[in-house]
């Protein structure tokens, strides 16, 4: 009983990034081999990339572990290794118990088959036996709320119905260890809540072990007691969620600095986002610059963008006209603040620009990317692609006639 159910020691996963040439056709492979034979560098156009490096941790039975980290930190690779889809390059992992993994909602759904048929197919793919699916069939259908459309081909489903059905099947798996990737980012808010409820129920009541990747801090706090924080393929910190999550959110305060591409021109030197302030809703971005001649006046422009790069709001000193009155400067740091960032929780980016009264000199597109967790908590937020990212101070009036 005291043995951990998951023991990972010094696991690493290496991928090769190929540049210019891809060796996915036989000809390339033969060509490379031949070049190798004649002493040519056949590895020359490949670059090693360690998605995971020296990752060690252990999980005890009944633990619910949230895996946190920025995009590309290795979270999904770790889950893929634990669910046996791919094998580690170095190190080893020992797993004691049956694993079911849910890396994607609706894996193996076939659009031409009906909802009923897909429940069986998807269940079998996730590792359920036919008898088990039959036993839980009614429960799954009720959970997904698709009774009326059971015999309709899935290709005619709305995307919401599709996701509901897919999650319902997965939610009724009964493995000893459940591995879940970011799958709750789909579906409407009400259903997301239902899924979260199901997840915590699974975790709390059945003593099952759960590994859970999410960017949704609310969900992480609600479900997970402990956390594993990955950064650039390594474990930054492992411990109670209550300690790791604030540390993770505040991380990245250190400024990004830039070497000048051309020192003869005015250029940006650093960009720093105050992530501690951000956790309370305050946006504070400091931008450093340097110039061979005094900028009169120095002007910094900032554009906030959605995670897809769509501009949401921007400002610069020049826009303010007479009210922008700093002294001429060769070097300095300009800080912009928004006391209460009027955005919903999501991932955002910011681009910065440098100029003076008349022209722009330098720019850093997508200089920072950040996960914003709004202090405004709305229990039922519709999906952001429907209502947009802006969280404006709405005021409502109701007249009864």
């Amino acid at each position, binding site marked *: 009983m005291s043995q951990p159910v998951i023991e990972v020691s010094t696991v690493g996963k290496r991928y090769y990034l190929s540049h210019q040439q891809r060796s996915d056709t036989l000809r390339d492979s033969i060509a490379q081999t031949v070049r190798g034979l004649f002493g040519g560098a056949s590895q020359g156009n490949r670059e090693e990339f360690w998605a995971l490096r020296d990752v060690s941790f252990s999980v005890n039975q009944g633990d619910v572990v949230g895996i946190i980290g920025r995009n590309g930190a290795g979270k999904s690779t770790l889950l893929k290794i634990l669910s046996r889809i791919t094998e580690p390059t170095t190190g080893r992992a020992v797993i004691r*118990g049956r694993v079911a993994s849910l890396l994607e909602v609706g894996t193996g759904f076939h659009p031409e088959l009906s909802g009923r048929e897909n429940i069986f197919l998807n269940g079998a793919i996730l590792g359920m036996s036919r008898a088990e699916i039959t036993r839980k069939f009614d429960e799954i259908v009720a959970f997904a709320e698709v009774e009326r459309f059971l015999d309709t081909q899935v290709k005619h489903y709305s995307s919401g119905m599709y996701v509901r059905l897919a999650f319902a099947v997965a939610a009724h798996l009964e493995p000893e260890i459940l591995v879940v990737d970011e799958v709750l980012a789909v579906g409407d808010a009400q259903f997301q809540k239902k899924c979260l409820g199901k997840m915590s129920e699974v975790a709390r009541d059945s003593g099952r072990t759960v590994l859970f990747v999410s960017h949704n801090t609310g969900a992480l706090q609600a479900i997970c007691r402990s956390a594993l924080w990955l950064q650039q393929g390594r474990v930054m910190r492992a411990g109670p969620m209550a300690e790791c999550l604030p540390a993770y959110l505040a991380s990245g305060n250190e400024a990004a600095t830039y070497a000048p591409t051309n020192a003869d021109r005015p250029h940006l030197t650093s960009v720093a986002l105050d992530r501690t302030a951000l956790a309370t809703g305050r946006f504070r971005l400091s931008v450093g610059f340097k110039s061979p001649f005094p900028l009169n006046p120095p002007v910094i422009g900032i554009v906030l963008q959605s995670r897809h790069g769509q501009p949401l709001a921007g400002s610069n000193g020049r826009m303010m006209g007479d009210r922008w009155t700093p002294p001429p400067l060769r070097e300095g740091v300009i800080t912009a603040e928004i006391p209460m960032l009027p955005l919903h929780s999501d991932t955002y980016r910011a681009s910065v620009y440098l100029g003076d009264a008349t022209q722009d000199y330098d720019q850093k597109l997508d200089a920072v990317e950040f996960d914003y967790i709004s202090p405004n908590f709305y229990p039922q937020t519709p999906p952001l692609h429907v209502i947009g990212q802006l969280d404006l101070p709405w005021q409502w009036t109701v007249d009864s006639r």
Partner: protein
Amino acid sequence: MSAPDTPELVLEAGRASRNYWGDLWRFRELLGFLAWRDIKVRYKQTVLGVLWALIQPAVTLAVFTFVFGKLAAMPAGNVPYPLLVLCGLLPWQLFAAAFSNASGSLVANTHLISKVYFPRLIVPLSSVAVALIDFAVVLVLLAVLCAWWQFVPDWRIVLTPLFILLTLVAALGTGLWLTALTVKYRDFRFVVPFLLQVGLFLSPVGFSSTNLPNWRTLYSLNPMVGAIDGFRWCLLRGEPPLDLLNLAISSGMALVLLISGLWYFRQVERTFADII
């Protein structure tokens, strides 16, 4: 659902899963489901549906009877020429369908392979099972032709499953090689139709292999020669007679293909998710 004893699973580079074959057995229902999915989806949104499984062999049968039976006037012994051709066409179509399904199976199921674990062997195996369905449909055509010529097979017909097995072994063996190679080198997609086209003429589909008395042993290195000869022997009342040496050669080749195919498949299986 809870396992009787907690299995300990070690994940390590290059470590072949010790209970691979046990896993394969545990996932046998998935094999059935995948085959069932492919069969269900196959004739969706077609007007003629399963009739397509009949049309193709029927047309091929007519063309081959005309070319080999009439134009080339090859001997058929004392069976109607169309029956001789159909008894060659049956195993050949089974082989062709099983082989081409299996060859494309892994790439066609990319989304499964990169998201879920199961013994990858399930995928080509289930695609071979699908080929058996079309085969069963063509058997109906055979029954109709036999009735037309009032040709009744004798006791040897009960041995037909052996030669179905031989055909499947040959198809799975070659299919495993090609599907595993296609994961890395998509070139092999182009090899499959080409192999099938050449194979159709290198196998005694439209004629009897007794037309090549001196070459028969060498010819038997093609496993389909043994399978087709065997089919004819079973269904056409022992005509032409079975040559056991040649049958052994064909069966041996099929086994070599299967074992080497399995070996190669298992070698590269662990990297499928990374390169597919």
